[in-house]
C-alpha cells in the first residue's frame, strides 16, 4: 500500500491549498448535456456511440466512467475534449458551451487535459522528457520560465528531482515513469480538469497504485478534477468520488461510488459487481455471481425500449414481468447529472421504489 496516499488521506494538509475534498461546482466545471455522437457506417447504418449523456465533472472531484469496451466511453471522452464533434447536445466548460473554432478550442485545452492509456505510445520516441512536457507551453506560447514550469510539473507528477529526467528519452523510462511524464505534460498547463482514458490499464500491477495515488493527491492537494474512464470497477473504488456506469452509449446508473458499487440497483451494474471478488458486505448485496450471456450489441443496433433488456437477468428470470411492457417499449429518460445522488435508469427499479414508497405511505396511514 502506498504510504503517500495514506498520509495525504490521514493528515489533510493544513496549507493554503484547497484541500477540502468537496468539489467546487460552477466556474470551472465541465458539463455535458444530452450529448450525442453518431457515426455513419457503410451501408447507411448509423452507430449511436454516445446516445444522450448528461455528465458533470467539477474541480476537486474524481468521476469514474465505467463500462465495457464498445459502450462508447472513449468516444464520450474524446467528445468532451473536443477531439470529436458531437452530433447533438452540448459540452460546456464553466457554463460556456464549447465552440469548435481553433482559437476557442485552444483556450479550452488549457483547462481540460487528456491522459492517454498507453504512455509508451503517448510520448514521441524522438522527444526528450523535457520536450514532451514543454510541448504544451510551446503550443500555447508560454515562454516565461519554461524550465521552471517543466520542473514544477514533473515534480508535481512525482518525478523528483525533475532535472534528472529532463533529457531522458521515453524508452529509457519505466512504464510508471512514462505515465508520470504524460501526466506532467498535462499538468504543465495548469488545467482544472483531467480526462484520463484507462490511465493505468497498460501498467504493471504494482505500479498502478502509484499512478492512482498521484491522481488522488492532485485532487486533494491541488483541487484538480478528473474524469477517469475505465473498465475496472476496482479502480473506481480506489480513487473515485462518483461513478457513472455506461451501457451502449448511455449512462444507466450513477451516484457516489459507495452507493453504486456496494448497493447497485441497475441489473447491469449488479451483474458487473457480482463477478468481481468483493468484500463480505458486497456479497450480501449481490450474493451470486451473475454472468450475463452474450456480448455488448453493436452501437448501430441499439434495442428499442430499455437497451439492456435483451441481456437483462431480471427479464430472463421473469422477475420483471409486471413492468415488461415498459421495458419493451419505453426508452428510459436520460439520467440528470445532479437531480439526485443515486440515479438508476431501470423500469423495474423504479417500480420497486414506487411500491416501497406506496407501501411506506400506507403503513404511515
Amino acid at each position: 500500500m502506498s504510504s503517500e496516499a495514506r498520509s495525504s488521506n490521514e493528515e489533510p494538509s493544513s496549507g493554503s491549498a484547497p484541500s477540502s475534498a468537496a468539489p467546487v461546482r460552477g466556474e470551472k466545471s465541465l458539463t455535458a448535456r444530452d450529448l450525442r455522437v453518431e457515426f455513419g457506417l457503410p451501408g447507411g447504418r448509423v452507430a449511436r456511440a454516445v446516445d444522450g449523456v448528461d455528465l458533470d465533472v467539477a474541480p476537486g472531484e474524481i468521476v469514474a466512467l465505467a463500462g465495457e469496451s464498445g459502450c462508447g466511453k472513449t468516444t464520450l471522452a474524446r467528445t468532451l475534449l473536443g477531439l470529436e464533434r458531437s452530433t447533438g447536445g452540448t459540452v460546456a466548460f464553466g457554463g460556456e458551451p464549447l465552440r469548435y473554432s481553433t482559437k476557442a478550442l485552444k483556450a479550452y485545452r488549457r483547462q481540460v487535459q487528456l491522459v492517454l492509456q498507453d504512455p509508451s505510445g503517448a510520448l514521441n520516441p524522438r522527444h526528450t522528457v523535457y520536450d514532451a512536457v514543454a510541448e504544451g507551453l510551446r503550443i500555447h506560447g508560454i515562454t516565461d520560465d519554461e524550465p521552471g514550469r517543466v520542473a514544477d510539473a514533473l515534480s508535481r507528477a512525482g518525478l523528483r528531482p525533475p532535472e534528472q529526467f529532463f533529457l531522458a528519452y521515453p524508452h529509457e523510462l519505466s512504464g510508471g515513469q512514462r505515465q508520470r511524464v504524460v501526466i506532467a505534460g498535462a499538468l504543465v498547463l495548469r488545467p482544472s480538469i483531467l480526462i484520463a482514458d484507462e490511465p493505468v490499464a497498460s501498467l504493471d500491477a504494482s505500479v498502478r497504485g502509484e499512478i492512482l495515488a498521484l491522481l488522488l493527491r492532485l485532487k486533494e492537494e491541488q483541487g484538480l478534477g478528473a474524469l477517469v474512464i475505465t473498465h475496472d470497477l476496482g479502480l473506481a473504488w480506489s480513487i473515485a468520488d462518483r461513478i457513472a456506469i455506461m451501457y451502449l452509449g448511455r449512462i444507466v446508473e450513477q451516484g457516489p461510488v459507495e452507493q453504486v458499487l456496494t448497493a447497485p440497483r441497475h441489473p447491469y451494474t449488479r451483474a458487473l459487481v457480482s463477478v468481481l471478488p468483493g468484500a463480505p458486505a458486497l456479497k450480501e448485496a449481490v450474493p451470486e455471481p451473475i454472468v450475463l450471456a452474450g456480448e455488448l450489441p453493436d452501437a448501430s443496433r441499439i434495442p428499442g425500449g430499455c437497451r439492456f433488456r435483451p441481456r437483462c437477468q431480471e427479464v430472463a428470470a421473469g422477475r420483471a414481468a409486471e413492468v415488461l411492457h415498459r421495458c419493451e417499449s419505453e426508452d428510459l429518460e436520460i439520467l440528470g447529472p445532479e437531480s439526485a445522488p443515486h440515479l438508476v435508469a431501470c423500469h423495474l427499479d423504479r417500480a420497486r421504489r414506487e411500491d416501497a414508497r406506496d407501501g411506506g405511505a400506507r403503513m404511515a396511514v
Partner: protein
Amino acid sequence: MTLLEFKDLHVTYTGSRGRIPAVRGVDLKVESGRTLGIAGESGCGKSTLAMAVLRLLPKSAEVTGEILLNGEDLLTMGWGRLRAVRWTGASIVFQGAMHSLNAVHRIGRQVAEPILLHEEGISPNEAAERAEALLERVGLPSSRARSYPHELSGGQRQRVMIAMALACDPDLIIADEATTALDVMVQAQVLQLISGLVTERGVGLVMISHDLSVLSEVCDEVAVMYAGSVVEQGPAHEVFANARHPYSAALGAAFPVIGDPASRKRPGGLAGDPPDPVRLPDGCAFRPRCAVAVERCGEEVPALLAVPGAAGEGPARVSACFVAQEGEPVVV
C-alpha cells in the same frame, strides 16, 4: 496424481546485454483436477515458465532442471514424442491468442486441424463433428464453425482458442493471461468456462496472471513470482487475503476489494520498478522496494520456507521472506 512438476528449473536467455536469468530455480507441482495460479508482473518469468513446458522457448534460452509431465521429462524428450505431447498432453492458451487465428480459414477447420493431425484414422467428417461439439462446449453455437475469425468478437475468439486447446483432450491446460484483454463480463464468462472444465474433466490447469484477485477466485493454490523466483506459495484466497510476503501483499493491494472500507480511496502499490534481471540486487531481489526489509535481507537470498501461522490443512504455506519466516507482519 502429480501431473506437472517443475524441479529446480532455470531459464537463462543470452541477449545483447549478456546473460539474462528469466527463471531462477522454480519448484512447482500441479495435480490433476487442480488449479495452480502463477501471479507476477511482466518480466517476472511466468510466461517463460509456460513456454518452457512445451519447449517453445527461443534457441538462445538455456534451460536446466526438470519439467515432468506425467513423470516424463519434457526437456530430454525426443521431438516426435514432444509433438504428440504438445496437443494431447498439454496445451497453452496465450494472452492475445485470439489474434493468432488464421484469418483465411473457417473456425471449424482450424479447430479440427489438431484433431486430424494427432489422431490416427479419424476421417475429416468426424473431425469436423468433433470441432462443432467442442465449440458448443465453450459456449459457441456450432454454426459458428462456418464463420471466419473476423466475424467473431474478442471474447468469442478467445473461446475458440480454448476449444482448440481442448481439441485433443489434454491432461494439462496452461492459460497465460488468457483473460487479460477481455472485458469484465466476458472475462467472467471465460473463467466460468475454464473452471467448469477443470471440475468436469479433471484436467490440471495452470493459470498465469498478474491479477491476484482473479487467481484467488479461480485457483486452488497460488504461487507468486518475482524476478524469476517463487516468493510465496499457498492456498489462493489466503495468499490474496493474508499475504506472507511483502510483494504478494502489494500485488494483492493493487486490486482493491470493492466494499472493503480499508481499500477505499487508498490505492495500493509499490514504489519503484521491478529489478533489471541482468543486475539483480544482492540478497533478496525485492529488498529495494520493500518496506519491511531488515539488514539480513541485503546479505542473504531468502529460501522458500514454511512460515509460522500457516500450519494445518491445505497446501503448505511457504514464503521467501526473512521477516515472514520470523512470524512478523509483512505489511507496515
